[in-house]
């Protein structure tokens, strides 16, 4: 179904490795680690990719064309719940000369395509865009524009009766408020595009100039987050800084990765979790309902 959509749009389907000897540093993701053994030399560490991004960006630096990949992704330490499986399927797609807003329109088209080709689809027909700041004003009662410091965020959290830790950084405090009070209240009867994430959350997305926001959105279907999109940062210096500043990671990182951005196209990348999308299409509330052999904590 998704293949059909991207094929009609002229996107090239690619297949990249599930194993990589280095990954992008994303300090909040926990990685599955394995070893590539050699009969006569020392073993080398290898990692199961948490998303195909590390490979797709290498591909794009040499081949600036519209691509998509349907890939297995692996995230360790994600305890099985109604929305989580440590191994899941994702469609990741990159569009040349697109911004995150162009990808937003493309994603709306994809959802409409699913609904028109699959009459039984339970996906909402309506789409809604809401900025993160609008969501905070509406559901947490304050604007992030005026409460941008960590200390002010903590005060707001405390006022809302939300527990915080002394050691919380800005992102943790933001996430506590978001998860506790904003996300549960997001509209569920629409395909919600939550736009303009705070720049304080470090990602490889471009910034919206002269604002505290990043060119990033997430897609929510039935209140469950199932997509993420950036206008891709393409400035090698900024990418290098991201690699230097991202918190501690346990896996190997290629500190020369930024060099691929010396020949990187202006583009936007989107990723949609297919299992969660199917949950939306079928109106199923548990990810176990769409996976043949769901993982259990006691594998």
């Amino acid at each position, binding site marked *: 179904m998704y293949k059909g959509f991207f094929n009609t749009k002229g996107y090239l389907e690619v297949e990249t490795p599930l194993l990589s000897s280095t990954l992008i540093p994303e300090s909040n993701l926990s990685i599955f680690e394995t070893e590539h053994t050699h009969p006569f030399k020392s073993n080398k560490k290898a990692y199961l990719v948490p998303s195909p991004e590390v490979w797709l960006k290498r591909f794009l630096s040499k081949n600036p064309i519209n691509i998509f990949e349907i890939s297995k992704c692996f*995230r360790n330490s994600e305890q099985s*719940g109604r929305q*989580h499986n440590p191994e899941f399927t994702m469609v990741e797609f990159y569009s040349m000369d697109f911004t995150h807003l162009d990808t937003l329109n493309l994603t709306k088209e994809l959802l409409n395509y699913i609904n028109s080709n699959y009459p039984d689809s339970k996906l909402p027909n309506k789409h809604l865009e809401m900025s993160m700041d609008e969501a905070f004003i509406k559901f947490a009662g304050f604007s992030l524009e005026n409460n941008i410091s960590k200390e002010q965020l903590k005060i707001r959290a405390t006022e809302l009766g939300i527990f915080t830790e002394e050691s919380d950084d800005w992102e943790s405090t933001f*996430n*506590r408020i978001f998860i506790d009070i904003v*996300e549960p209240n997001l509209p569920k009867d629409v395909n919600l595009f939550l736009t303009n994430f705070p720049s304080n959350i470090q990602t490889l997305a471009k910034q919206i100039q002269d604002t505290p926001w990043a060119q990033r959105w997430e897609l929510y279907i039935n209140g469950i987050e199932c997509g993420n999109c950036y206008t891709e940062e393409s400035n090698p210096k900024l990418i290098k800084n991201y690699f230097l500043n991202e918190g501690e990671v346990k896996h190997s990182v290629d500190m020369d990765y930024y060099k691929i951005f010396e020949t990187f196209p202006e583009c936007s990348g989107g990723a949609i979790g297919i299992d969660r999308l199917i949950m939306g299409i079928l109106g199923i509330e548990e990810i176990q309902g769409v996976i043949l052999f769901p993982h259990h904590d006691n594998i």
Partner: protein
Amino acid sequence: MGQIKAGAIEKGMFILEKNTPYLVTEREFVNPGKGSSFVRLKLKDQRSGAALKITHKSQDNIDEIDVEEQNCQYLYTDGENYVFMNNETYDQFEVPSTGLEDEKWFLIEGDSYRVVRWEEETLGVKIPPKMDMEVTEAEEGVKGDTVQGASKYVKVGTGLTVKVPIFIKQGEIIRINTDTKEYQERINK
């Protein structure tokens, strides 16, 4: 009292939040887009019966309460409190009715229950998933009245009203699902 990480909380545990003991009734993991992991908890204040929704980072330290389960006999109620007796020590103690809104319908005088205790406080009375109870009030079923799917309402000894098939009579024993408070079957004495 021991400290555990919020990510290790399981449904059915008792934890301390803001110096109040709570029963964990629901737990769901959430990972905001590539962010750190969180747990969403639904808690029940065992003193007031009030529900609380709370979110924690999986790494937060939480006080888990070491509760003790005791085998106790339910003696009587004075309306305000329910009086129990520990079957081993014969100690009697009172449980305020506010924390037993759901359980009170299944407390039969003289019967024994597993009671969850913590520091002289009762945090919960465990009700078996199914209980056999005597019908104390039943209207005669009206023959031919099948509009309601041939069912009617009866009362059991504790005052609970249950929807039953039309053939159930006063004095009969019926099996009830204590979770849903629904009729399951007639028990032939």
